[in-house]
């Protein structure tokens, strides 16, 4: 009881100056960037929507008039068990003029048998199996090599798609001819499976479903998700398709931006995916994803930050924002904690508790407020509310520590080149050529 009394005394005796001194990290880096700026952009997006309506209708009309062939590429290893469901999901699509190309990247299960049977029954247009695994990039490139469509949609086999997903994602190319790639709205399908999958569903809602609306509107959208991304074929041909991963989704987005194409996010094109259901699996996935920031932003595409003939301010800010908010502030947080520990040792428990309260309230308000911007209001929101307090731990500690480990591994040991996700034969070349 004494602690609570002291805590309230701490809070009530705090003026704005002290508040900023104790919680500047929250105020400047979290609240301003991820709440105020995002809210502002979302409001702007919402209120300007009516002005774009006519243009969207025109894009829609043009799509259905031209009916371009869309090549759907599904590269993967040991994905046979998901392929039938995927094919079924694609059969329900409102947009039917597509060819389905499945690339089996050296599966050692019955993927080949399943896919050959589906092909025989006319459910897959082209199935190519590589007996030797070459990695996701090479499998996607093989699909691209034989794609005949004007647009290429890259899908993951374990995802399912809303019936109008293909139509909605391709429509964006007719909205703006300068668009080279469009990312779909990836949501978590198995959000009820475990605590960690529920947390990820909230995270995806925050950082993808809503967060990417604002980054796309600001022109700094930087990752077209591999689970659901659409590309102009000639743009892909120009950049030579995918390069060696991991992190090839972000890499290809940067490559498109570098040659002058816009990349957009389409919240209406919805894809459901299965998220890792244990913290261990999630940590492994994030360690892989987070290393790509160092590898691609700081090494391979560092030229984006430097003056050159292809220099673009938008690309520059996109990179800078990514590096500052994900890398610099990640390490800055440790300095903030050390600062608090050494300078306000006696107040430490109160500051930490207040931080917890601030972040939790921020999450609640943001989640409730931002859910108003959802395009599909049938999505379950109430289910997630009890889990929101846990997001402080998930976001603030679990993901932050995982990110820190990934950055350190990549900075000092270039660990992404040793990741078994990519075959060693390709990774060793990527490392030698600084790809």
């Amino acid at each position: 009881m004494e602690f609570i009394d002291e805590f309230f005394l701490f809070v009530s005796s705090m003026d704005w100056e002290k508040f900023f001194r104790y919680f500047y990290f929250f105020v400047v880096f979290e609240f301003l960037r991820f709440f105020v700026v995002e809210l502002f952009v979302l409001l702007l997006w919402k209120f300007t929507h009516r002005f774009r309506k006519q243009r969207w209708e025109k894009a829609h009309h043009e799509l259905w008039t031209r009916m371009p062939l869309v090549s759907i590429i599904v590269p993967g290893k040991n994905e046979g068990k998901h392929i039938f469901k995927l094919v079924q999901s694609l059969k329900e699509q409102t947009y039917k003029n597509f060819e389905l190309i499945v690339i089996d990247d050296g599966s050692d299960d019955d993927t080949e048998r399943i896919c050959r049977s589906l092909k025989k029954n006319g459910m897959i247009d082209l199935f190519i199996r590589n007996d030797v695994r070459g990695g996701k990039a090479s499998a996607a490139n093989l699909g691209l090599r034989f794609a005949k469509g004007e647009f290429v949609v890259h899908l993951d086999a374990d995802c399912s798609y809303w019936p109008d997903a293909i139509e909605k994602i391709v429509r964006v190319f007719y909205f703006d001819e300068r668009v080279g790639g469009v990312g779909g709205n990836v949501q978590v399908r198995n959000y009820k499976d475990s605590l960690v999958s529920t947390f990820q569903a909230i995270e995806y809602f925050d950082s993808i479903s809503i967060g990417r609306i604002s980054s796309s509107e600001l022109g700094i959208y930087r990752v077209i998700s591999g689970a659901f991304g659409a590309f102009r074929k000639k743009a892909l041909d120009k950049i030579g398709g995918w390069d060696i991963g991991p992190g090839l989704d972000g890499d290809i987005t940067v490559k498109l931006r570098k040659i002058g194409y816009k990349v957009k996010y389409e919240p209406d094109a919805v894809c459901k995916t299965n998220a890792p259901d244990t913290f261990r699996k999630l940590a492994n996935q994030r360690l892989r994803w987070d290393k790509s920031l160092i590898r691609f932003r700081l090494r391979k595409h560092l030229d984006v930050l430097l003056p050159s003939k292809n220099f673009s301010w938008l690309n520059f800010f996109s990179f800078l924002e990514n590096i500052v908010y994900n890398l610099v502030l990640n390490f800055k947080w440790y300095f903030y904690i050390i600062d608090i520990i050494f300078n306000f040792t006696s107040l430490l428990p109160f500051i930490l508790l207040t931080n917890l309260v601030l972040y939790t309230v921020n999450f609640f308000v943001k989640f409730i407020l931002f859910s108003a911007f959802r395009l599909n209001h049938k999505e379950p929101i109430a289910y997630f509310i009890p889990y929101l307090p846990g997001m402080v731990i998930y976001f603030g500690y679990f993901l932050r520590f995982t990110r820190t480990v990934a950055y350190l591994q990549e900075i000092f040991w270039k660990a992404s080149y040793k990741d078994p996700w990519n075959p060693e034969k390709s990774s060793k070349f990527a490392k030698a050529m600084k790809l």
Partner: protein
Amino acid sequence: MQSPIIIIDNLQFVRLSVETGLDTTQIMAFDGVLIDAKDASFVQNSILTIRRHHQPEVYLKPIFLCQAHPQAFIHIHALSDGQYINDKDNTLVSSKTRKIFQKTLELTDTKPNSAYGAAIKKALDYMYCRENRILQPILDPFSIIGYSFPEMSVSFETHEEAQILDALDWAEKNELIWPDFQEKIYVCNQCSGGLLSYREVCPHCQSSHTYGEDLVHHFPCAYIGPISDFTNENHEGLHCPKCNKGVHHIGVDYDKPSVLFHCNNCDTKFQDLYVKAKCLSCKNDVEVQYLQSRTINTYKLTSKGRHAVTKGFEEQNISKDFNFIERNLIGEETFISLLTQDCKRTQIEERNIGLLAIHIQDTAVLAREMGHYRFKKMILELYDIIANELNPLEYLYLEQGHTFFFNQYIGSDENIASIQASFQARLDQLIHHNHGGIAISMKYQHISLKEWKDGSEALKKIKSQLN
């Protein structure tokens, strides 16, 4: 000119040559045959004519060759009993002839009802008289299945060779012969022909106008495409189209993870080439998994087989086993049960129902003369003619390829005679029209079912009347 009759160790042999020609009726009077001709075709034809004869006194006759002939004439070597080059061979020839003669005396004079029965009996007789000779398959490019069983082939036309396997299967199933595995072959699922041309075809349009290309994966840039993407006029060797670097060492900077085929006919790409087999006999083009698998065995006579040739053998169910199986005709059991129903119907409803039988006589000889293929075709023509005359309540049963049984709804007993006469006229007309020149004799019988309570009894009765 040498004398046509030669005495060896008190045995009389007839010497056949190109000049003397062959008269099978004369052969019966001799103990054996010597063929003295250089012309291998003449020798082969003479041997085949003798072995094809329907009388055991002819087809079992020992045959010796006075001259050597090329191995290519497989029937010469397989169906003759040895050589008679000079007097040194006298002992061998005479002892062999005597042994064959002794064995011939042990045979029973069973006359099989069916053509297949006759063929099997003939082969078994031959094997028995040749010291339980083994029935040996011989690779034969002229045989429709690629193998010949000379002892059986003599009873079949070349295009019917596949049916030999059916006949041998039947004999094996009835334990008359014992198989020893030699080879497994694949034959056409339509005509059982073994002369197949295997082709790799496009799974979409079945065209064989396809070409395949290796896919090349360049490790450093993850480009992957057909090898033709990596070749161009400006560079020697392979060159990556994505990163413009030379591709040099397989396994080091590139590999070939698979092959992709392209169809020039329908412009599709695929990896799963279909293998199809085109039958050179009937032109049927079939995927290999639908080919029929057959086993080629050597066969020995079993004790049951030896018993069958000396004491006579049952050839029941030959027709059911293989003869007309493809027509899915009703079987004896079904026929009897339908007949029993009709017997009851005559009692209860006082309907007048008759049972008619048409028996084709001497089918074994007919089949020999006409050839099995033509004979079978004729039987099926007769079957169709009769079946077309029947109303929905009437049904037809063909027994062992030689006797037709069917019921007839008749107004009075007198009617059945006119119905029988009508059938007789139609069948005679068909035979005259389609098979003129061949003497086919048919026997007709009829009974009324009202006298019978059981179908099997009625069938037995009419069969006895036929005999």
